[in-house]
């Protein structure tokens, strides 16, 4: 029992450790109701009603899965929630729909060509649901023991004891498995199945034998019989894999050499064709189902003309996913050419897209977003501090105001206050410059910086480049 208690303590600690707070970690969906109408504040989403409504329509299109190769462009100023809408869409689609997120600059890799990177991204966004025989472990949890290596960080080792009415076995677990066990909150007395190949855990319920352990079990607690016979069984399970994963499995002919190369590099087009043929065969026989997903390309203006023309062609394929791009540029040069075009995207591709604009937030919406971020970053803020912060956000930028939340809360903690006051916000506002004030500062003291002898020349140079 002592080890069990230890596992519980570990659980609490590791959850606070794993979940780091990202820029969009407060987004839990698109914040739409059942008829796809946007709610004012919901699932971390605030304002931007038209764009969210549009995203709702796109969501419906993806869910139906009939239309291949549509492109959507989210266009708007910096900090107007383009990435947030894409993340919300991913959340709303759920874990079964493939959602690949990439930045436009990611394709400029030395390992593979641009078109290969794009092809891989496209194939990562198409799922195949297929029935496959797999090794399933099914049993009642007797004990979960998690040990962490001395020193707190790094490698974890875990042991899981499972039983059926006929047998009992100990399993060794690696850190990935431990994390997912803790995430599922698996404890002694639960009846679970584990897919040995994928590590997917499924909680079937609690064992009848444990029905009297606690008085206060939740109403949704389901009681099941402890399984019989062998712990490990072969069963048909439905897997969702992406086309890219199938490509990788079939392209690895060099066996253990893959160990040294690490990643997969480029995949031959013959293999892709072969797999397309096979998948079409499976679909005809009813063995597999295709799930078209979403490819999200952030900072799409970073793509160059080759990528755009490749995308033009790729979108026409039957197996293309829905491509969502986001950009914060206005009329600008298309990368790789000297032509200028709206959003830095060629007109022929723009013509194939539906464009969803996002607009700057109003003051009330900014306040609401800051409030949500305060909650997300675990920071108590007084109402006047929040008002000041909202003013900062309207005058400078939303991103800068969000930066001030945690910094202000650290300042407040240093004077042992439980709540962030107006003074704390003012203090960090004076400590950290925003982009505008920094520019002002530079203009004022330009002469004193390094390499500034020909001060008068610099602006002219800039104009020439432009």
């Amino acid at each position: 029992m002592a080890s069990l208690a230890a596992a519980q303590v570990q659980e609490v600690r590791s959850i606070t450790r794993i979940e780091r707070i990202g820029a969009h970690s407060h987004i839990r969906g698109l914040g739409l109701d059942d008829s796809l109408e946007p709610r004012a504040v919901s699932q971390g989403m605030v304002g931007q009603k038209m764009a969210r409504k549009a995203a709702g329509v796109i969501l419906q299109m993806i869910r139906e899965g009939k239309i291949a190769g549509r492109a959507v462009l989210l266009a708007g100023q910096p900090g107007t929630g383009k990435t947030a809408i894409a993340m919300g869409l991913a959340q709303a689609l759920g874990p079964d729909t493939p959602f690949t997120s990439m930045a436009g600059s990611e394709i400029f890799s030395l390992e593979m060509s641009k078109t290969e990177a794009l092809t891989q991204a496209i194939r990562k966004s198409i799922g195949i649901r297929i029935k496959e025989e797999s090794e399933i472990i099914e049993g009642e949890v007797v004990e979960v023991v998690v040990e962490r290596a001395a020193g707190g960080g790094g490698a974890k080792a875990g042991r899981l004891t499972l039983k059926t009415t006929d047998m009992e076995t100990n399993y060794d677990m690696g850190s990935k498995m431990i994390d997912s066990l803790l995430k599922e909150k698996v404890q002694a007395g639960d009846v679970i199945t584990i897919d040995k190949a994928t590590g997917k855990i499924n909680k079937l319920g609690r064992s009848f034998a444990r029905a009297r352990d606690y008085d206060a079990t939740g109403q949704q607690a389901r009681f099941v019989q402890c399984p019989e016979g062998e712990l490990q069984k072969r069963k048909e399970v439905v897997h969702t894999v992406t086309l890219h994963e199938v490509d990788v499995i079939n392209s690895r002919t060099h066996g253990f050499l893959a160990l040294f190369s690490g990643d997969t590099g480029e995949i031959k087009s013959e293999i892709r064709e072969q797999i397309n043929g096979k998948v079409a065969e499976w679909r005809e026989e009813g063995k597999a189902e295709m799930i078209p997903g979403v490819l999200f390309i952030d900072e799409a203006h970073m793509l160059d003309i080759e990528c755009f023309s490749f995308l033009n062609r790729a979108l026409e394929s039957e197996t293309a996913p829905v491509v969502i791009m986001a950009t914060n540029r206005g009329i600008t040069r298309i990368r790789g050419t000297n032509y200028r075009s709206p959003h830095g995207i060629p007109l022929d591709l723009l013509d194939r897209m539906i464009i969803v604009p996002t607009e700057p937030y109003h003051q009330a919406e900014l306040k609401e977003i800051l409030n949500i971020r305060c909650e997300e970053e675990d920071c108590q803020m007084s109402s006047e501090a929040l008002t000041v912060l909202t003013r900062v956000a309207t005058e400078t930028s939303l991103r800068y105001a969000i930066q001030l939340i945690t910094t202000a809360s650290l300042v407040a903690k240093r004077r042992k206050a439980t709540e962030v006051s107006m003074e704390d916000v003012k203090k960090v506002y004076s400590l950290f410059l925003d982009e505008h004030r920094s520019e002002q500062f530079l203009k004022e003291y330009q002469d004193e910086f390094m390499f500034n002898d020909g001060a008068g020349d610099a602006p002219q140079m800039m104009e020439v480049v432009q």
Partner: protein
Amino acid sequence: MKRKSKLIKMSGESEDNSFEKRLRDNFVKSYKHSDKMYKNTTWYKCLIDSEKSCLKEDITKKIHYKFDNDKEMVEEYNLETCVLLRRAWKVKGKLGGEGKWSVEIGDPIYDTTPNNETADIVESKDQPIVTRRNTRTNLEWRIRNLPYPINTYSISANKDEKCIIVRTTNKKYFKKLQIPELERLNLLVEQANISFNHQFQTLIIMYKKPQDLLDMEKEWFEELKKVKPIKDMPDDCKTQ
């Protein structure tokens, strides 16, 4: 009339004769049939039809089979004792890829390349593990890491599921042992053929090979002599 009766008599005689003959023929045939019963099994036909290649190494002989349904199997024989040391099947996933060897008889092949993709849950090192190792007269299973005394185990033949079931009275271990050798010849599992033994934390289960299986193995070993071993054997990676 006389002629007629004679004719009838003759025909009657011949009928009698042929009936007796047929009976004897049938008996011999059925005897022969039961003798070579395995020849009618799909398994034996598959073996005959498969594409075989052979390697000889000192006293072991390795045979690689390629079946019509794209399956691959490897057998390893000891030439002195004529005993099958190892039999392994290549198991391919539905999604394709290289596939892995799954060992039916002999010591398991450990995966030397650490695999990051498979989920990291495995039986602990101290948990029971089943291996197969056949002798000339017995099919044998060895279950290592079973520390319980011999009276804990009950081993029974299950005719419905065509397997041997190992149970323990302390409910610590349970296993259904498949017997592919018998299944391939459509033979039933007999409780009388099972015996078992326990020492050094290992439970050894022995199943006496039925006559049919013995005959088949003997004949198949002779048959394999027809497969010419590959002369220019590729150099083994001695550096590893």
